[in-house]
């Protein structure tokens, strides 16, 4: 049982960071980026390539991060920049369509480049676990959970302590008013999108260390969007607890009903929560 919780928490923190990228884009720009999962998988392939060159997966995170940042900036310029001044509903609908197309395109592009074989990166330390209070804790999972926490803290400091971060918060609350304060909204959109996609480098690596193939992006997006909705849409501080919640529910379901009911239980609880607490579990009132 304790061991189940450990796996639930570690998996949950992975769900949490996947959700973070989706929640940031949605919270700031009101874009729904269906391609976030595929971009995570793209990051995993870049990581695979780097590992074949001999770079350690964890050390390759910053490289993947920069690569995804630049790629996302180009994607934004070419595919998403036209939606900037649309109203909220139009933004959601159009970004959904565009990112769906993008996802199909990238899935296929990845298949063409890397074939549809299932891959994984297996460094020497991939199986290492250590004991704590009688529980086995996998090293990689723990590192991933720590990275998730660090990332959210950094993001919090960036948003609250820097002028640029404050302008991002301002844009998320009233885009037009922010522009009247002298905020360059297009640049803020571009940067926020690129940052949100570059965050995918962490789940990229964690997934690469498990296993991946070209078309599993949507599966991971689904986990992410469920967590985003559980946490209360647009609330970036709720994603980690909501991710942990989903991870633990899934782990408990495996423990009680067996592995084949994992997805079903997760989604059933999700629907139940939507009915009972439609605004999400971790919605905060007042300050951003």
């Amino acid at each position, binding site marked *: 049982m304790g061991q189940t919780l450990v796996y639930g928490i570690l998996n949950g923190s992975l769900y949490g960071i996947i959700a973070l990228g989706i929640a940031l884009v949605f919270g700031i720009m009101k874009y729904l980026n269906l391609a976030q999962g595929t971009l995570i998988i793209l990051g995993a392939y870049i990581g695979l390539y780097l590992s074949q060159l001999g770079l350690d997966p964890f050390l390759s995170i910053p490289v993947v991060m920069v690569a995804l940042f630049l790629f996302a900036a180009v994607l934004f310029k070419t595919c998403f920049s036209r939606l900037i001044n649309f109203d909220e509903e139009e933004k959601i609908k159009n970004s959904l369509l565009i990112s769906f197309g993008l996802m199909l395109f990238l899935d296929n592009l990845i298949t063409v480049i890397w074939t549809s074989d299932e891959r994984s990166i297996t460094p020497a330390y991939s199986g290492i676990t250590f004991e704590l209070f009688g529980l086995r804790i996998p090293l990689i999972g723990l590192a991933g959970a720590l990275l998730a926490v660090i990332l959210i803290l950094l993001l919090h400091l960036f948003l609250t302590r820097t*002028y640029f971060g*404050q*302008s991002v*918060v*301002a844009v998320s*609350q*009233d885009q*037009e*008013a*922010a*522009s*009247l*304060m*002298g*905020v*360059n*909204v*297009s640049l803020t959109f571009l940067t926020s999108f690129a940052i949100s996609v570059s965050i995918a480098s962490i789940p990229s690596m964690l997934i690469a260390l498990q296993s991946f193939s070209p078309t599993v992006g949507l599966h991971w997006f689904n986990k992410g969007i469920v967590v985003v909705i559980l946490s209360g849409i647009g609330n970036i501080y709720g994603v980690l607890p909501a991710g942990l919640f989903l991870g633990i529910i899934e782990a408990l379901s495996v423990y009680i009903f067996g592995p084949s009911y994992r997805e079903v239980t997760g989604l059933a609880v999700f629907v139940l929560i939507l009915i009972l607490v439609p605004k999400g579990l971790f919605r905060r009132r*007042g*300050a*951003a």
Partner: protein
Amino acid sequence: MLVVDGLDVHYGDLQVLWGISLEVRDGEIVALIGSNGAGKSTLIRAIAGLIRPTKGTIRLDHLLLNRRPPHEIVKAGISMVPEGRRLFPKMSVLQNLRMGAFMKKARHEIEQTLGWVYDIFPVLKERSDQPAGLLSGGEQQMLAIGRALMANNRVLLLDEMSLGLSPLLVQNLFKIIAQINETGISVLIVEQNVPMTLRLADRAYIIETGHIVGEGAAESLLNSPRVREAYLGIGPECEDSLGGV
């Protein structure tokens, strides 16, 4: 000096402004008078860069401003208090004010400007840690004006700042606008209360269905029978009902 010349604005195929020309000289208060739907907000928004005019020019001194995005227009020296306040509701009062000084040149003077804004609106200092969304309507409007002042700009555009506020508060805000203008800031003001606005302003333009149909010294417009009938709803015989500001 802010000069608008021959401005056309369309929403899609619908033209709402037709060849608008006006100017706001340094240190002036200029009022824009017109009934609902005349195009006042559209004109203010076009000057602020929120809508791109289809024809005509907007200049601040020699700088051409039409076709520029809003953030460049603020940098050029024009701040706007939008209709409906448009605060950042989840940010605190102080954070809203700091956002007002987002531009680099304003950031350098932020502490001084903040002191000045707090002097004008002491209540903002008392409420500085409260989320803007929880302020009263009047306090929100003060914050909207204070936030625009934080940019330390030479031109202030005010769109219906007194909407929904108590008469006493409106009188106060008008006094404050006069006071702000004393410091050398030019003001272009849109208001529903025509007599009060004409008393505050130096000059005024009258706009009807997207056309400028009259202009002149505010005082003479206040006394012109045409304005009195159309916007004050009174004939020349009811002098006294205009009351004092």
